[in-house]
């Protein structure tokens, strides 16, 4: 920023004051945790050094023993054949094959270090044991008659993750984080037995203060409160003093996948789930985390558009089960689930609600596949809202085919990005869809963070973005439902958002000169890690 120094109005003191010369007339004050950034920089540097050490050792071997180069080339080719035979998505395979061939001296070593069967083997066994122990708490409901349009999706969810359909569950949709958290605070205030919170981001600020005021009061009255937060998600936002305050109140708090300075690809796997369970009778889920920007009390990227859902009734027991299994995983202590999972109270509703989760604890990429099934089944309309749009080939092709078959396919993306490089890839993919008739909207002056899918048959509200990280690397949670009330609320939200958005067409596409194409192509290479 250009500074022009003037004499102070105080004159004699001769204090020099600057004149603000940025064009902005209005700036909204925001705060960031600088110490968190320093910590992550140090860890990144240590990780970089370790990676450099691995590379140097193998380069040195190649220099000392010429036969090692031949051997590593053969091993690289074999690894490439192995990569092509795995069930990874085609983009990941392409990226890995390029990487292994380009860095044939050490690329195959890094590939095997990154293979989830190797780095995640122990954790997978632990999850398997936890799942087996929790098997007896799983409900065995079947889909009631009259819900045939969603029968195939219900069957898929049951066969892949054991997720069962629930009735007697009342749902309420919240089209903004502010409305969602007002309802959360009211419900927390009514808690009598337990409160379970699992969130990707918890951030210091006024919302945390409001929540902690209630939680402290509840903990003092004997309510069992447990919090799981993602370590990376919170490391720059949740201060040590806030953690101290939480622990002092008697609230149990555990991080998921702590950031260590030992090189491991497992650091890339995060708990992106968002759920707040109160007494096992009410759950809140959706896209919003516990931070001021989600309720627009802190301005980050224009207006922050988010969404959430409240469920009351039988389906809450599924969320309680998801939470307790994750709690058992992070604490390592065995748990008796029975006082918690049986606390759900039925509500009068005949809509079907299927809560489902995704992550390395499951064998299938359920989040992605449910989206694909919904796209395949949609005939009249398919509306999607997502902050990031980095699909793999199969999902992209399904959307293309759907639009070409005459279905009304619409996609809402942010008008202001939170990460410019991810946004470049997002717009690149989205603009490919415009050519086949998909209507792509960007919400004006806003960052869209809602993760929603709506067809004429069903709706999905949850934490699952339409990107490869959510599909393959993160622990996610969502609700699949055919509740007409929620679907109608969602439709109104989509329609009002269309009005506040700009339809992307020939006139307002991103610039596409050779440099931009090259940049987008390079970003595409790292898209599986975004």
């Amino acid at each position, binding site marked *: 920023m250009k500074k022009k120094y003037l004499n102070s*109005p105080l004159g004699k003191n001769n204090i020099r004051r600057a004149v603000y010369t940025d064009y902005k007339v209005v700036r909204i004050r925001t705060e960031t945790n600088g110490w968190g950034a320093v910590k992550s920089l140090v860890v990144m540097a240590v990780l970089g050094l370790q990676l450099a050490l691995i590379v140097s050792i193998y380069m040195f071997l190649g220099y000392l023993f010429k036969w090692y180069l031949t051997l590593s080339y053969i091993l690289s080719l074999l690894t490439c054949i192995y990569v092509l035979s795995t069930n990874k998505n085609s983009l990941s395979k392409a990226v890995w094959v390029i990487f292994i061939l380009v860095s044939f001296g050490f690329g195959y070593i890094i590939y095997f270090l990154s293979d989830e069967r190797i780095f995640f083997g122990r954790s997978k066994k632990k999850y398997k044991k936890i799942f087996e122990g929790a098997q007896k708490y799983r409900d065995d409901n079947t889909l009631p008659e009259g819900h045939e349009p969603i029968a195939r999706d219900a069957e898929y969810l049951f066969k892949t993750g054991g997720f069962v359909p629930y009735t007697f569950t009342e749902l309420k949709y919240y089209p903004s984080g502010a409305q969602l958290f007002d309802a959360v605070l009211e419900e927390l205030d009514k808690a009598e037995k337990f409160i379970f919170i699992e969130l990707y981001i918890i951030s210091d600020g006024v919302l945390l203060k409001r929540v902690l005021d209630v939680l402290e009061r509840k903990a003092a009255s004997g309510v069992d409160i447990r919090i799981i937060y993602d370590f990376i998600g919170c490391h720059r936002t949740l201060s040590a003093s806030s953690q101290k305050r939480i622990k002092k109140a008697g609230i149990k708090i555990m991080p998921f996948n702590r950031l260590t300075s030992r090189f491991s690809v497992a650091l890339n796997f995060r708990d992106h789930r968002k759920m707040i369970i109160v007494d096992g009778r009410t759950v809140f889920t959706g896209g919003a985390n516990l931070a001021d920007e989600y309720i627009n009390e802190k301005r980050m990227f*224009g207006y922050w558009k988010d969404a959430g859902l409240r469920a009351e009734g039988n389906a809450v027991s599924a969320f309680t089960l998801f939470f307790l299994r994750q709690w058992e995983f992070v604490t390592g202590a065995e748990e008796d689930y029975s006082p918690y999972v049986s606390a759900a109270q039925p509500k009068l509703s005949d809509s079907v609600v299927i809560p489902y989760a995704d992550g390395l604890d499951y064998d299938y990429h359920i989040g992605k596949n449910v989206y694909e099934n919904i796209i395949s089944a949609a005939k009249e309309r398919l509306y999607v809202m997502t902050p990031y749009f980095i699909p793999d080939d199969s999902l992209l092709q399904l959307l293309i085919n759907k639009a070409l078959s005459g279905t009304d396919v619409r996609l809402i993306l942010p008008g202001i990005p939170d990460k410019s490089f991810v946004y470049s890839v997002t717009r690149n993919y989205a603009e490919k869809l415009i050519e086949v008739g998909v209507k792509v909207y960007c919400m004006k002056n806003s960052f869209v963070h809602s993760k929603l899918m709506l067809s004429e048959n069903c709706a999905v509200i949850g934490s699952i973005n339409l990107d490869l990280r959510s599909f393959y690397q993160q622990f996610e949670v969502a609700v699949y439902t055919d509740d007409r009330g929620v679907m109608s609320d969602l439709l109104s939200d989509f329609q009002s958002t269309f009005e506040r958005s700009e339809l992307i067409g020939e006139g307002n596409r991103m610039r596409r000169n050779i440099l931009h194409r090259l940049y987008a192509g390079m970003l595409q290479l790292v898209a599986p890690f975004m």
Partner: protein
Amino acid sequence: MNGKTIDYNATDTLDVTVRTDKAWELWDRYKKFGWVQYASTPDSTYDNLVHISFYRPHRIEHKDELQILQVNMEMAINNLSKAERYKNLKSMVCGSLIAIITAVFVLLGTLVPVFMYSATHLAFGIICGVLAVITLAVGIPKNIKRREREEDKYNRLTLSLNAEIASACARAEELSGGINEEEISE
């Protein structure tokens, strides 16, 4: 609210940093969104900046729409200021280029024949002089037209941004219903 601490459960707060010359205008606009000013401090580094703190009831009706409108208003105000600042940027750059190129031709056309006197250098000097005249003859009218286009574009943009600000404020006032400051502070 004066002198009292803010109850963050019942009240929302907003901290805005604004240019001093626009502070009153903006204060008036934020009022339409239900915000009431409770503190104002000059910036410790910049003479022409002031930090204003507002509050409004947490449970205000139509909060989501008010927030969207407020963001639209803030963006429009900043875009207006940006447009004003950069309105003649292209014509200014082109004008400077024309001046530099002309000056170079004039200097070459004058100095080369003076210091290296020969028929060839004299011819070179004449060519440079002609080029300087051509640059001025072609460049100035073109740049005047460019400036006119820029002014026109700026005027249209200003009109639309002002309309956007006015409509956001009007709609916000309609939604918030005009907040009674005394009522809130009680």
